[in-house]
């Protein structure tokens, strides 16, 4: 096993990982950074984010407004100290990206343009047409090439964290092209490994979004937080689940049911706004949880359009005109034509809600620290409690910048102040265990379970039990199913025994990671007997601040279901109130 000694090891080279790496390299060029990722940086799923990144820049906006939108949007399950720090840092980070060359869309006078987004009271979403995440990722990746202290380990699959003396001291990862294991020994480790949307059958997430880092931390004893909060994006393209950005609605697109009726007005988001004149925090510019829930109700009422790919409603942009769509939403048009055969310039696009984002993740605080010293986490894999029970669109791209930088600062400080010798023998022992685990998995024979089979059962069960609306009964069933699947996972057999780019093996590891996390989603949801943000219980329809204005923590218990615990929400200046998206009308 090869040993790589480094100062800061970063797992994941998407937006969060790259921002963290750059921040370390910029301020501390003498520190070695190992950037470890199972894919090349440009393949990371940050590239699929479309709409934009929120940050206060215009004179009609204020930090308080961004704060209020975020806290209310998150149904008060946000830590307000975190939100305050975030809104304060957001503009600086977005400007920094501008200085690094991000091709933000511009106003005629040359300043950066902003567009409206759901749940935001003011236009504050910086955008690069409808490929904002793509441009952010490539800007960061290309900028990272400037720094010689960043050493990338592309296509290295992280297997386990290495813990000794009560702190995290590295990670063991497999070089995918050779099957060889590498032991990365680091003074601090930052997890930036993304979400786990592939736990669900219908998701905007790419194949790589399997929660590997989150599961790794969870297995190592770090609790996950608020995993039951899963965001459904209201406008996923039918059949594939490809994301059609909220920018579609920001630019004036509207949702219609099978009768052409703009149904959102029936769900507390009216009154109907005139076509082509979107009103902030109203109708189509309501938050994602509410819009997805409205779809579910329409479906119950039989107002959706049945298709061979499931029920759908329409996202109508035909009134925006070809020129505007080509300028602001070129990708949306291309995707609709390629994957649904529908030109949004001419016809409404069939859509349905689709799993998009995990609000939950590794338990972190305002410093991006996990409870384990030396271990930090940033981005979708983490839960800094910025997003609460429902993330507002365009906050997550900014989040990975703001907290990437924060994590870098704190990881550097930790690494600098930690002169204790690494516990080499203990670390090697753990790495050997990981080696054995992999070998056992590859060589095991006589198994009867298939990866694809178990995966299909898992995704189906999560969707049925822990979808947009949940009940005790469906959740309990899902909890049982997932527990059973975790047992059956021991019975899978790999047919690929090769050491070279063994995707059979990687899929098996990913499935194991997803199954562990699926259990935290279902168990967390079962325990939370209230409705809040994206977690809606038909049997407990109201929000219950008395009992559940708390974060859910889930602790790994080996083969058993996780232990559920709770953690206080930080409230500084905004007392829990009513989420109002009716444009001021009562």
């Amino acid at each position, binding site marked *: 096993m090869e040993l790589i000694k480094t100062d800061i090891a970063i797992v994941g080279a998407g937006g969060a990982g790259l921002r963290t790496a750059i921040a370390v390299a910029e301020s501390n060029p003498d520190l070695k950074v190992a950037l470890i990722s199972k894919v090349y940086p440009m393949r990371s799923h940050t590239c*699929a984010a479309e709409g934009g990144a929120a940050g206060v820049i215009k004179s009609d906006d204020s930090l308080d407004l961004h704060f209020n939108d975020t806290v209310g949007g998150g149904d008060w399950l946000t830590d307000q100290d975190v939100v305050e720090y975030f809104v304060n840092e957001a503009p600086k980070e977005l400007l920094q990206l501008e200085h690094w*060359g991000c*091709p933000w869309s511009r106003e005629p006078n040359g300043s950066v343009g902003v567009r409206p987004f759901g749940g935001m009271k003011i236009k504050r979403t910086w955008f690069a047409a409808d490929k904002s995440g*793509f441009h952010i990722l490539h800007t960061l990746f290309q900028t990272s090439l*400037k720094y010689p202290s960043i050493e990338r380990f592309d296509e290295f699959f992280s297997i386990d964290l290495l813990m000794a003396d009560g702190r995290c001291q590295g990670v063991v990862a497999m070089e995918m092209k050779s099957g060889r294991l590498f032991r990365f020994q680091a003074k601090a480790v930052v997890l930036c490994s993304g979400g786990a949307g592939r736990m669900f059958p219908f998701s905007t997430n790419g194949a790589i979004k399997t929660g590997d880092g989150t599961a790794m931390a969870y297995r190592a004893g770090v609790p996950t937080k608020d995993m039951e909060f899963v965001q459904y994006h209201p406008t996923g393209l039918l059949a594939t689940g490809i*994301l059609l950005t909220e920018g579609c609605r920001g630019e004036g697109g509207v949702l219609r049911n099978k009768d052409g009726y703009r149904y959102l007005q029936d769900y507390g988001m009216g009154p109907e706004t005139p076509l082509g004149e979107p009103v902030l925090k109203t109708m189509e510019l309501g938050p994602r949880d509410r819009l997805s829930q409205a779809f579910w109700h329409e479906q119950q009422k039989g107002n959706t359009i049945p298709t061979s790919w499931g029920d759908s409603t329409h996202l109508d942009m035909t009134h925006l005109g070809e020129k505007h769509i080509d300028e602001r939403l070129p990708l949306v048009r291309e995707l609709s034509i390629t994957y649904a055969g529908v030109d949004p310039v001419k016809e409404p696009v069939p859509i349905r809600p689709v799993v998009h984002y995990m609000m939950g993740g590794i338990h972190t605080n305002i410093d991006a620290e996990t409870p384990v010293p030396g271990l930090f986490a940033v981005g979708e894999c983490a839960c800094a409690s910025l997003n609460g029970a429902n993330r507002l669109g365009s906050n997550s791209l900014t989040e990975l910048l703001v907290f990437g930088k924060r994590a870098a600062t704190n990881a550097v400080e930790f690494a600098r102040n930690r002169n204790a010798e690494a516990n080499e023998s203990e670390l090697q022992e753990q790495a050997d265990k990981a080696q054995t685990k992999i070998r056992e998995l590859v060589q095991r024979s006589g198994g009867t379970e*298939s990866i694809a089979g178990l995966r299909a059962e898992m995704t189906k069960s999560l969707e049925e039990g822990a979808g947009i609306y949940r009940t005790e009964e469906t959740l309990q069933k899902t909890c049982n199913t997932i527990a059973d699947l975790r047992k059956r996972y021991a019975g899978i057999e790999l047919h690929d025994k090769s050491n070279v780019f063994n995707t059979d093996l990687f899929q098996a590891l990913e499935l194991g990671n997803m199954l562990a996390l699926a259990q935290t989603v279902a168990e967390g949801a079962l325990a939370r007997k209230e409705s809040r943000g994206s977690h809606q219980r038909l049997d407990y329809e109201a929000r219950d601040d008395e009992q559940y204005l708390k974060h859910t923590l889930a602790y790994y218990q080996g083969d058993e279901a996780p232990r559920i615990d709770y953690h206080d929400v930080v409230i500084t200046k905004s007392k829990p109130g009513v989420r109002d998206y009716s444009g001021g009308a009562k």
Partner: protein
Amino acid sequence: MSAVQLELEILRYDPEKDQEPHFQTYQVACQEEWMVLDAINHVKDEVDTTLSYRWSCHMAVCGSCGMMIDGQPKLACKVSVKDYANKKVRIEPLANFPIERDLVVVQDDFMEKLKRVKPYIIRKEEQPIEAGEYKQSPAELKKFKQFTLCINCLCCYAACPEYALTPEFMGPAALALAHRYNTDSRDQGLAERHKELSKPEGVWDCSFTDTCSIACPKHVDPASALQQLKIATTVQWYKELIGMGDK
């Protein structure tokens, strides 16, 4: 949901077992809405789990699933199975790259070349963040915008005959990105990039076949960038010749 029958001939290669690659045939009954990637995923999930290939986003933006489909470099997630209905379709790893395993190619060469063109903003003096953004008009943005759309899928390298003949050639995507930064109004790094671009394996190995632009699934025009770069490189060379090289 009518079905489309596809006969996939997939190039297989496992360096631990095979001396050289060979084709393996799979019959796949596809749903009409499927992309070729969905058909390959079907093979992986249901027929042969040993098949190795890269993929992720399934929306033509991550650039993972570039491969030769029926002899042409394409993103597997962006071509419909209907285009090949009832046909034998050859699926091969991207041309001009070494095969690591099955449809997975070695991309280290591109990663190295990308770094060499310095694809980032270079300035003599940084404006502090507090001073706000660099102003850039929509026209200035448009000037380089299309070249920012490259997803690094490497279809252009697979299409480029010069890269096949002269592997040292920097190639279309890396050079298009050099041009993207050279023409960004915020950048002042042309003279610095010139050192790399003016080498024989820089812009000069391009013989302008235009096949990179034809292959690009994102409608970027690297061939155009290359020709503009040749002009810029020539101008810069003459400038340096008379001692006015610094941009």
